[in-house]
């Protein structure tokens, strides 16, 4: 389960619209609660490190950027709890490629952007045996 407020959701949507037709990506920074629930405190946009030709359907967060994000989170006594990215002209469901490049526990929020307008937005979590993504319950607060 992931808790996220409307401001952070709008930030993800507008990042997706802004980077259209390319994929956008970023970190979800917050805390892991004792019961396994994640609470997003802020979003942390990242420049898509893919080269130009691949950006339409790929994103990449370099480990160096992730480490930088981790340090930023630690400075606020928070942690990286997941990632978000956009699927331009594609549904907000994870691809096989997403599955192979993910770890469990993290939340993966995907926003579908069609014709420069953000649409569906879902959060996904990988099964511990890596077999598939399960849709994750999202609790939105104002």
């Amino acid at each position, binding site marked *: 389960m992931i808790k996220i407020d409307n401001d952070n959701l709008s930030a993800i949507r507008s990042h997706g619209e802004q980077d259209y037709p390319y994929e956008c*990506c970023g970190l979800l920074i917050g805390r892991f609660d004792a019961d396994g629930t994640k609470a997003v405190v802020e979003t942390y946009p990242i420049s898509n490190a893919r080269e130009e030709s691949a950006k339409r359907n*790929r994103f990449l967060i370099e*480990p160096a950027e992730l480490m930088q994000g981790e340090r930023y989170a630690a400075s606020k006594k928070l*942690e990286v709890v997941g990632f978000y990215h956009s699927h331009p*002209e594609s549904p907000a469901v994870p691809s096989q490629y997403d599955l192979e*490049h*993910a*770890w469990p526990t993290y939340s993966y929020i995907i926003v579908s952007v069609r014709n420069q307008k953000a649409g569906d937005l879902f959060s996904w979590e990988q099964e*511990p045996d890596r077999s598939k993504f399960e849709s994750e319950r999202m609790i939105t607060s104002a």
Partner: protein
Amino acid sequence: MSITIAIPAPLRQFARGQSQIEVEAKTAGEALDVLTSTHADLRRHLFNDQNSLRNFVNVYLNDEDIRHSSGPDTPVKDGDTLMIVPAIAGGAVIEEEVGQTLPELSNEEILRYSRHLIMPEVGMQGQRKLKAASVLMIGTGGLGAPLGMYLAAAGVGRIGIVDFDVVEESNLQRQIIHGSRDLGRRKVESARDRMRDINPHIEIETHESRLTSQNAMGLFRNYDIIVDGTDNFPTRYLVNDACVLSGKPNVYGSIFRFEGQSSVFWAERGACYRCLYPEPPPPGLVPSCAEGGVLGVLPGIVGAIQANETIKIILGAPDILVNRLLLFDAWAMKFREFKLRKDPQCPVCGENPTIKELIDYEEFCGLGAPQTAAVEEKVDEISAIELNARRLRGDNIQIIDVREPHEFEIARIPGTKLIPLNHVVGRMNEIDPEMDTIVHCKGGVRSAKAIEALKRAGFSGKLINLKGGITAWAEDVDPRVAKY
């Protein structure tokens, strides 16, 4: 060595909640093995089914990516920290990553490659990588022969062949990709037919032309790996520079008499040919195989080593010949190895490269028109036909053969005196300076050197070089004289 492995937050549930774990290991790879043998559930998140690190998983040893050191073999010492950091990647459903688009194998192909498939180091994944790969072979001579046949047999999906030559009798002692029935055929066609016969499942592209500074970049662009099977310095530097400029690995091999060399020159990962040999040797110092000879098996061995390394590069194998120069002596039956280092001053792959596009390699190797013309001007020449005419006229001439005695055994021009090149100055008094002296060798190169040496040594008589040597004599005057 006792080191600490930092466990990233999402994986801690597979490590009993621990954020760091101490292990004993000598290398980074061993540390991960120890970690995942005690916490088995971690393994599938770090390693794929082929037992290699998942491509989005990065391992840092004290802030340094181990891929920039020796990968899993990177040594660790007491107190080091290993960090596991994911590169987070993902994307929409359109599958275009290489890993996703590897071609499938047909049942026929599975049967054909079964000896590869049952080894985990190759497996289905590796064989599909071979099928997806493309290799450009420069030359289909001694080195290109085993290379082309093994790459074809291994199932490399697309192979390009560059050669401009035709098959000649003297090639068949070592160029086993061609046969007697191919004599006079274009080498690219003869090689293509043999490779197609070995494996009809692959694509073969022939480029019947000399590799030049004008066409090299365009040709290289369409292939993943370039294999250098050439026999001359200008082309070797050309292949090297074009590989550096296009970022491709250059699988190098060379042979002479009984000795061979091989290496993988890959500027992104190590030394290039220029780091090893910044300058070519002076022209004429290192004889070609045509002049110096070569044991027929030697290119078979060296070309097979090149095929081996090419296949390993495609499979992503460790321990390729990068930064390693392998020397092989067939007569002593000894292999030796030298470490190579990337030269920061290298004019093409160094920190401040001065060569940013292909140059004139004939000129670079001292074979350009201006210099050799100057040398040739000083040496008088005669053609085989004119020489025959002078002999028939009964001119007062002497003919000195500067080849080696074993060559004299093979074929000779009647009425000549044998004084091998190395002895020609020492035995100068055996040459009569009162007569015109015609000097000959196999093709005209050594005899020109002999004339220069004699002139420098103060020989006073008239010296004339037989153009084209005994080969021209056999072709133009006396077909009974054997060509070799």
